[in-house]
């Protein structure tokens, strides 16, 4: 490893340990690392947005003589009138245009992808049971999913008091939701532990180069 890599890796290791130090208690090292992240990210974003939005979409197009790009430029500038209370109303015009376009593009496709397709998927659970490809395991799975779906939906049905049969099904719905939350929690734990593992892999193997001096690890990786 050359000296440049040693120095940059050591800085990264110091910042990692500075962030970890918050687990003990808040301290100046953590504050320094936190402010550094925020500052660097903000600076990075400004540069990225200048070179990927302002430069190619406005400056270069205007330089090419495409004068009509003055219109979106003006609409963009009008957005900034929100900063002056007296002129805030002007910003509603570009905002209305933006919302109109975005809503028009989003609503039909969002409905298709996130509602209609899922309704289709739920109906397919029933049709599967009558299909020639249906297996016993598949049918049992589908029945569980279907009952869970109905129970969870009934839990969110508030037009009737949750008593008697409705109350019982709603309770099953709670169990189904809890199973869902449990799965999400399990995945979240795995994700957070993954981040911890990555930092430890960096500290132990990249920074300290432990694989070369831990005898049992060296033996393991070379046999």
């Amino acid at each position, binding site marked *: 490893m050359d000296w440049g890599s040693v120095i940059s890796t050591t800085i990264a290791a110091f910042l990692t340990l500075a962030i970890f130090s918050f687990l003990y208690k808040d301290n100046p090292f953590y504050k320094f690392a936190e402010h550094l992240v925020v500052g660097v990210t903000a600076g*990075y974003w400004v540069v990225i947005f200048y070179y990927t939005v302002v430069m190619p979409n406005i400056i270069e197009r205007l330089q090419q003589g495409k004068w009509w790009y003055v219109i979106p430029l003006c609409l963009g500038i009008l957005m900034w009138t929100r900063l002056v209370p007296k002129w805030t109303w002007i910003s509603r015009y570009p905002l209305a245009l933006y919302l109109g376009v975005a809503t028009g593009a989003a609503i039909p*496709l969002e409905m298709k*992808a996130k509602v209609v*397709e899922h309704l289709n998927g739920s109906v397919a659970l029933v049709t599967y049971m009558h299909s020639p490809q249906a297996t016993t395991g598949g049918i049992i799975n589908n029945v569980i999913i279907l009952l869970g779906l109905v129970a969870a939906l009934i839990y969110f049905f508030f037009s009737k008091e949750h008593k008697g049969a409705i109350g019982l099904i709603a309770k099953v719905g709670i169990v189904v939701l809890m199973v869902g939350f449990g799965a999400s929690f399990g995945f979240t734990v*795995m994700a957070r*532990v*993954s981040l911890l*593992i990555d930092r*430890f892999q960096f500290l132990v193997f990249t920074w300290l180069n432990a694989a070369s001096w831990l005898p049992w690890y060296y033996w393991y990786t070379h046999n």
Partner: protein
Amino acid sequence: MTVFEKMFALDRRWIYLVLGLSVLISLVIPFTVPIPISQEARNIYNYVDSLKAGDVIHLAIDYDPSTIAELHPMSLSILRQCFDKKIKVVVTALHPNGPVMTAMLLDTAVARHFARTGERMKRGIDYVFLGYKPYPALIILGMGQNYRIPFPTDYYNVPVDSLPMMAHVRNLTDVRAVLNVSGTSGTDYWITYGNGRYGVPLALGLTGVMASDYYPYMQTHQIFGLLGGLKGAAEYEELVGAPGRAVEGMKVQVVAHMVIILFIIAGNVGYFAIPKSQRRRLT
């Protein structure tokens, strides 16, 4: 004070310390754990494996360095499989913090392929990196019409029309699949606009936090495969025959999870062991 009352008074920093030590110790002790391959991961591998040399896939890298731990091993394994199969790859990075990281990722994949096979994958011929543009929904809709609308030039400022690989790639319908490796809501845009609007086959590689939210899309066939978190990454590393950081990380996951499960059990036992009247005061 009973043991259980002491347990509730325990400083949480002890828990951090125990978890940290369990991760550190299991990391430096060599052992392996079995990694069963899920059908969702196998679907992606089989799909890419079934493509012919010269086919094009789109690798959408929609994450930033904060999720490298889980997602980089997936991207590297996918690139390895594509390079080995001579499948051409269009790469985009629709997260503002992603482009530099993605360029480095591609350099790493190319260097590893060269070290392993002696064959140097060429930019513009074997793969193309288009870079970053803001507003992913609009960019995906733009790519659905023509890649050149949102990306007249690639990340390195080379006109896309001059790249040999892009000569026969006009829009999303010309790629065989989009593999979206993501730690952001950009995945929703790929489902809604990439798959929903243009019908491009879509598979996801997601962080663990996101994975459970996207499993329903498997059932509706809007995606054909899903890699969830480090486990998904480890599965793909196994599938391509290149166990790496994700596989190495899974043994630590097992130990860390066992520690967390023990803490959860101990916490629950303690909770139910103390009298009901004291629970509110102690918790």
